[in-house]
């Protein structure tokens, strides 16, 4: 479905995508994760044909830059930040449906399933809607078309719990579609995805398939390090672990879908680790698997 070969994108001599190779098969559901500046948005814009680049990008064998309209017919995109469009909601739906050859009524119906009455707010300027309403409408436009590739950038960021549930149900039903869900946290989208791709400084640094089931349960971790390293300690805090013993012992729980990334992260500091112990927590108070690693 998607093939990226040696993809390079630079802005004023700064390489944002650095010889990136990635293949995504049809039907795969990817969580694209990484910190700010990792290159996720740039990668998405290359897929949408919005950036020139070196290297090759193919979607179903077509190049998004060259075969723009043909590629974008297959793509439903939800941006992280809704654009400040002044046009009324009904105009936006009409335009999106018109250029995509989609049925506007279907978009309105999907919006309704997400809890947005698009007809009621039809005359209101898009930019005057609340953050959640904007997000719902953009999701409805992406899902209310015959798109086979969904590119969703933090799709649930502004949604209330009910809309979030409805969105995840809708996405779960689209079993044949390929999905790229960009997110800062894997646990947000863990139930949707089958593969995690982590980017850092324009490269793929982690790429693995998620196994649903017990392996997705939270992981209780206790780490002992040989010396208090500031960079490691800062990273531990970001992962949500708490320090004991002057920063030499770290305890906490890692969300199930993040465990592979966490292990990958730890491998970079293997020289610093004195010991590590992990327990998988299938249910509260139950330990079914313990791994002890002593340096």
């Amino acid at each position, binding site marked *: 479905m998607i093939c990226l070969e040696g993809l390079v994108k630079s802005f004023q001599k700064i390489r944002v995508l650095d010889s990136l190779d990635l293949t995504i098969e049809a039907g795969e559901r990817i969580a694209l994760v990484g910190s700010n500046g990792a290159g996720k948005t740039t990668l998405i*814009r290359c897929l*949408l*044909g*919005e*950036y*020139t680049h070196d290297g090759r990008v193919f979607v179903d064998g077509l190049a998004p830059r060259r075969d*723009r*309209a*043909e*590629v*974008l*017919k297959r*793509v439903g*995109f939800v*941006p992280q*930040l*809704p*654009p*400040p*469009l*002044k*046009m009324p909601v009904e*105009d936006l739906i009409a*335009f*999106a449906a*018109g*250029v*995509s*050859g989609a049925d506007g009524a279907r978009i309105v119906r999907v919006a309704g399933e997400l809890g947005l009455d698009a007809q009621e707010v039809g005359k209101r*300027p898009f930019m005057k809607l609340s953050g959640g309403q904007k997000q719902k409408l*953009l999701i409805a436009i992406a899902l209310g078309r015959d798109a086979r590739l969904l590119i969703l950038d933090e799709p649930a960021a502004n949604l209330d719990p009910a809309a979030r549930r409805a969105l995840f149900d809708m996405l779960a039903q689209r079993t044949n579609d390929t999905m790229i869900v960009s997110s800062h946290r894997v646990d947000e989208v863990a139930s949707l995805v089958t593969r995690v791709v982590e980017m850092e400084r324009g490269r793929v640094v982690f790429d693995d398939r998620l196994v649903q089931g017990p392996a997705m349960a939270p992981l209780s971790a206790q780490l002992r390090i040989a010396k208090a390293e500031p960079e490691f300690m800062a990273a531990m805090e970001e992962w949500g672990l708490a320090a004991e013993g002057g920063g030499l012992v770290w305890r906490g729980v890692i969300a199930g879908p993040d465990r592979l990334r966490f292990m990958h992260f730890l491998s970079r500091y293997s020289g610093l680790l004195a010991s590590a112990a992990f327990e998988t927590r299938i249910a509260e108070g139950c330990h079914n698997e313990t791994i002890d690693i002593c340096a």
Partner: protein
Amino acid sequence: MNKLPLAAGLDVAESLRSRWFLLYASVFGGIVALLMIFGVTESRVMGFTGLSRLLVTYIQLCMAILPIFILISTVRSVASDREAGVFEYMLSLPIPLGAWYWGRLLGRFVVVLLPVVSAMALAFAWGVARGAEPPWRLFLIYSGLLFSLSVCFLGLGFLISTLVRSSDVAQSAAFLLWLALLVFIDLILLGVMMREQVSPEILIGISLANPLQVFRTAAMALFDPQLVLLGPAAFVILDRFGQGGYLAWAMLYPTLMGVGAAALGYWRFRSGDLV
């Protein structure tokens, strides 16, 4: 379905809702209203009376206001749309780049030209209704000149928008372009260059190449082609071209310049980063 009309309609609707359009339409409507209120249609100045006088005054004011208005409003809205992420979303929809670019340009052209010509047409109709002799030839020629001037500056505005990414820089570039063109009209820098005995061919070349000067000369040539009003370069050019030939140049050249600039902008747009 052809997607160009969709993009054009989108731009027309967006412009009609925007504050710049309200201001723009008010300015041109207001000019005509003021000219009527102050009785320009009734006055006799330099041999022109009634509607002819109103049209002549109106076209002079258009020359001063229209180019900078078109340039600034175009580059501002296009560049700020790009900065704010509007392009990122709208260009993720399956619309061909040609339909998007030319559609928006067409929509903007309609929006820019409509108030200017409508105000003139309303004044014309009002004058005729009050029994004035309708100066059809003048009206048609001025409509043609306004058309070519609008195409010219719209094309330049779109070109600047594609070359410059920040809205602040784009507005500054548009303003500087207008200033440069304004400086090189007959009564300002060209006059100084003439005093400094710059070659007449260069002066005439600049005069013919500057769309503002071309428009000004054509507009004035219709009512008083005298040296003191036209300026020396325009006078010489008119003498060589003749009125008919110069009017043809004044309509064709700015139009071609605008279309050329827009085409260059399109090439730049489609060959670079879209957002």
